[in-house]
């Protein structure tokens, strides 16, 4: 049975600014629990999500990339054995201009039942709420004391 998590938000920004915020470490460190992505951002490049203290939390590769509108990552957790054991997931970022706004749709899915999907369902709303605050007000939300599971 497949599993998926979908989150949609609307941000007062441009697709280009949102794309930079999604891919550049100086932005992601502010809204993504201090994490950044280590990636060359070309199709087939390896992808790593790295925590503020240097731990490689997740790995994968770029499956599709079409700036500033679409990014698809192959994505596996590396630090929680029970999540890693379920193997790879797929995460799609779709960016669509709507007048003065951008619609951002994140779809994080797996072909079979996968524990990571429940875990990221807790994390994405926090990360994407903070991203929206950063782009609209210049300030990300304060980081919670503890990371959400996953």
């Amino acid at each position, binding site marked *: 049975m497949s599993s998926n998590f979908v989150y949609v*938000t609307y*941000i*007062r920004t441009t697709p280009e600014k949102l794309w930079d915020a999604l891919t550049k470490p100086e932005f992601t460190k502010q809204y993504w629990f201090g994490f950044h992505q280590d990636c060359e951002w070309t199709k087939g490049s390896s992808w790593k999500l790295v925590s503020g203290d240097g731990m490689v939390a997740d790995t994968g590769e770029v499956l599709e990339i079409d700036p500033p509108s679409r990014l698809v990552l192959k994505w596996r957790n590396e630090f929680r054995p029970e999540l890693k054991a379920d193997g790879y997931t797929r995460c799609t970022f779709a960016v669509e201009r709507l*007048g003065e*706004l951008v619609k951002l749709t994140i779809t994080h899915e797996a072909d079979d039942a996968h524990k990571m999907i429940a875990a990221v369902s807790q994390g994405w709303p926090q990360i994407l*709420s903070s991203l*929206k605050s950063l782009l*609209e*007000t210049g300030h990300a939300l304060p980081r919670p004391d503890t990371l959400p599971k996953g």
Partner: protein
Amino acid sequence: MSTSKFVYVTYIRTTPEKLFDALRNPEFTRQFWSETWQDCEWKKGSPWKLMIPDGRIGDTGEVLEFDAPRRFAVSWQNEFKPEMKAEGPSRATFELEPMGDTVKLTVTHEMDRENSKLIEGVSGGWPPLLASLKSLLETGDALEMTKKWPEGV
């Protein structure tokens, strides 16, 4: 029992009191919720109506739970789309949890029926409204797309 359910979580830099007010006060809802307002006395058991700006009643129900500024729930039946009205009442629950200087807002809209058209409809509606509510509280300005009732609806 088979159910249809939509859950949306957002984190807003505000206080529970301001958010609880913004979710119910017509002055705020008209800005982030497509010019609609709720006609309600906000006590458990009070009738609840969502009013469309042209004077039509969009949805009706009653207050099922009310615990300011943490939580409220309303029963919610659509009144202007026959295929949705026929499904009967759904339930919408708003939960507010303070987390430092932000508030976690969870909106759960559900119905004891498989493949509900009402729940499918609100699943597309809540993300822009709640994104606009967040913008309104954090920047003072709601998103343009939610400031007017959509033409022809």
